[in-house]
């Protein structure tokens, strides 16, 4: 036990575990994160792809390869901080609150991050005014009343504003609010952010049986062994990509009334959607408190160190 204690209070272990974490973090940036395991098996040579998936490197920050060094770092940090505090108290020395606050703050940040990793909830809704309301947790609904996009003279976005109404379960109106980028709507235990915009292009297709079907950008249908992907509307024409095997996709541009596969294009429409992200993150408050402790600790450590250096 004593050996273990000595190991965990060692500065060399602290430096080692910090550097291991740094190196692992950097390695993770060399591999795209969070994709389907099949992607890694296809993209990399088989043994490397299998190794990436087996070690969890494709979702590194949720894998034991990251959590174990993190745990080691947290234990090392706790033991070092406690041993420093008690050591100074035993010797009757004044506490160095700066470094202790930094260490305590980092532990609180790690705790907050763990809570976020387990309990954070996020969903993005793409809505246009008049669309059916989106369901939020707790039985509330979110309806987009209006949406405005201001642009600079060169066409770049200047401001996006969504006016939304939130209704509680049973239809009671909680309120209607504007949401801007960097100015989220704060509801109890939930925030709604203006995160993106999207254009929804729709092509209306008439089938051989006389039935109408709508296809949105990114959707596809099969025809004679090929896949026909609706890539959107450009200059009033529908753009379809025909993909077959490993050949480069062939692009087809169609005006209304022209044929694509077994269908005839009978209509095109386009509309702007507002991307609203609802987030519930019980880990943010502890993480923010931890960051505030780190900031206070850094300030205090700096002042104390400056005092020490004075003759």
């Amino acid at each position: 036990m004593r050996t273990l204690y000595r190991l965990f209070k060692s500065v060399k272990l602290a430096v080692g575990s910090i550097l291991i974490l740094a190196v692992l973090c950097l390695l993770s940036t060399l591999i795209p994160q969070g994709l389907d395991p099949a992607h890694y098996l296809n993209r990399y040579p088989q043994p490397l792809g299998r190794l990436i998936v087996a070690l969890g490197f494709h979702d590194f920050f949720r894998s034991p390869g990251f959590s174990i060094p993190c745990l080691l770092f947290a234990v090392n940090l706790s033991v070092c901080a406690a041993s420093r505090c008690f050591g100074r108290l035993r010797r009757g020395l004044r506490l160095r609150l700066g470094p202790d606050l930094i260490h305590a703050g980092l532990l609180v940040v790690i705790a907050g991050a763990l809570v976020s990793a387990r309990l954070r909830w996020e969903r993005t809704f793409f809505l246009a005014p008049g669309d059916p309301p989106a369901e939020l947790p707790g039985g509330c609904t979110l309806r987009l009343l209006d949406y405005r996009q201001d642009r600079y003279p060169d066409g770049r976005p200047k401001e996006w504003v969504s006016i939304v109404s939130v209704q509680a379960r049973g239809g009671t109106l909680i309120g209607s609010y504007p949401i801007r980028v960097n100015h989220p709507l704060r509801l109890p235990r939930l925030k709604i952010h203006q995160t993106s915009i999207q254009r929804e292009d729709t092509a209306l297709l008439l089938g051989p049986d006389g039935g109408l079907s709508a296809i949105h950008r990114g959707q596809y249908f099969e025809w004679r062994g090929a896949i026909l992907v609706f890539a959107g509307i450009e200059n009033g024409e529908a753009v379809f990509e025909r993909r077959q095997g490993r050949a480069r996709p062939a692009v087809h541009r169609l005006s209304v009334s022209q044929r694509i596969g077994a269908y005839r294009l009978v209509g095109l429409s386009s509309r702007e959607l507002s991307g609203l992200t609802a987030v519930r993150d019980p880990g943010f408050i502890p993480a923010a408190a931890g960051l505030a402790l780190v900031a206070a600790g850094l300030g205090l450590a700096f002042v104390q160190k400056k005092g020490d250096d004075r003759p």
Partner: protein
Amino acid sequence: MTPLALSQILGSAAFGLLAVSLAAQAVFLLRRRGGLDPFSHYPLAAAAAALLAVTVERSIRIRFPAVTNTFESLVFFAGAAALVLFLHRWIARRLLSPWVQFGGTVTVLALLAVASSPIAPRELLPPVPALQSYWLVLHVSLTFLGESFFIVGFVSALLYLVSKNEAEKTRLERLTYTAIGIGYPMFTAGALIFGAVWAQTAWGSYWSWDPKETWALATWLVYTAFLHSRLAPRLRGRVSAILSVAGFVFALFTFFGVNYLLPGLHSYR
């Protein structure tokens, strides 16, 4: 005179002043007089003032602090680094060696050279919605202020690694620690704390493991390891100096490499 021409004149003046400062330092170093020359820090201060004036002038034009693209960030970084070098010369001249000042000035000139290259377009563009946040201003400005001190730490650590003189090594080690000791809290506050607060406000996620965030964290971890390595007698000295050099290399990659090589939320140009 159009405001764009004014900032071009100020930028060119800053480049010229830095070149004059560098030339004066080189002449003094070649004469092997030892100690710091009595002149070169004045053009250095004037260059810092000119670069910060470019930032102010562009900020007035776009009605927002001008630190929202690569060019503006580089100009601010170079101005802050020149100011930090001048402050070291003024306040900590007992620690500052002429070679550290020379290396620091070369780094500032290199930053300006990159700013004037095609990889950093200099159009005057007001920020897109996500960048219109004062948390972003705190995030960027404090990060670059911290990294300006890291430049001094980097150059003095490099010199430590090649120096054979024990007295000189002690002085360089002290300078590296002082510079990083001041830069580290600024970098922590700017890159990690205000960055997290801004990300939470803009996207609802204070940490996304985006490549830039991950590299900034790795940079911070390396500097944290540096500060702790000084507490272990066996690591103090050479290992600390290597960590200081590695930390600055990581900081540079976080700024340049990630923007151009690793796609993510921060891949703006």
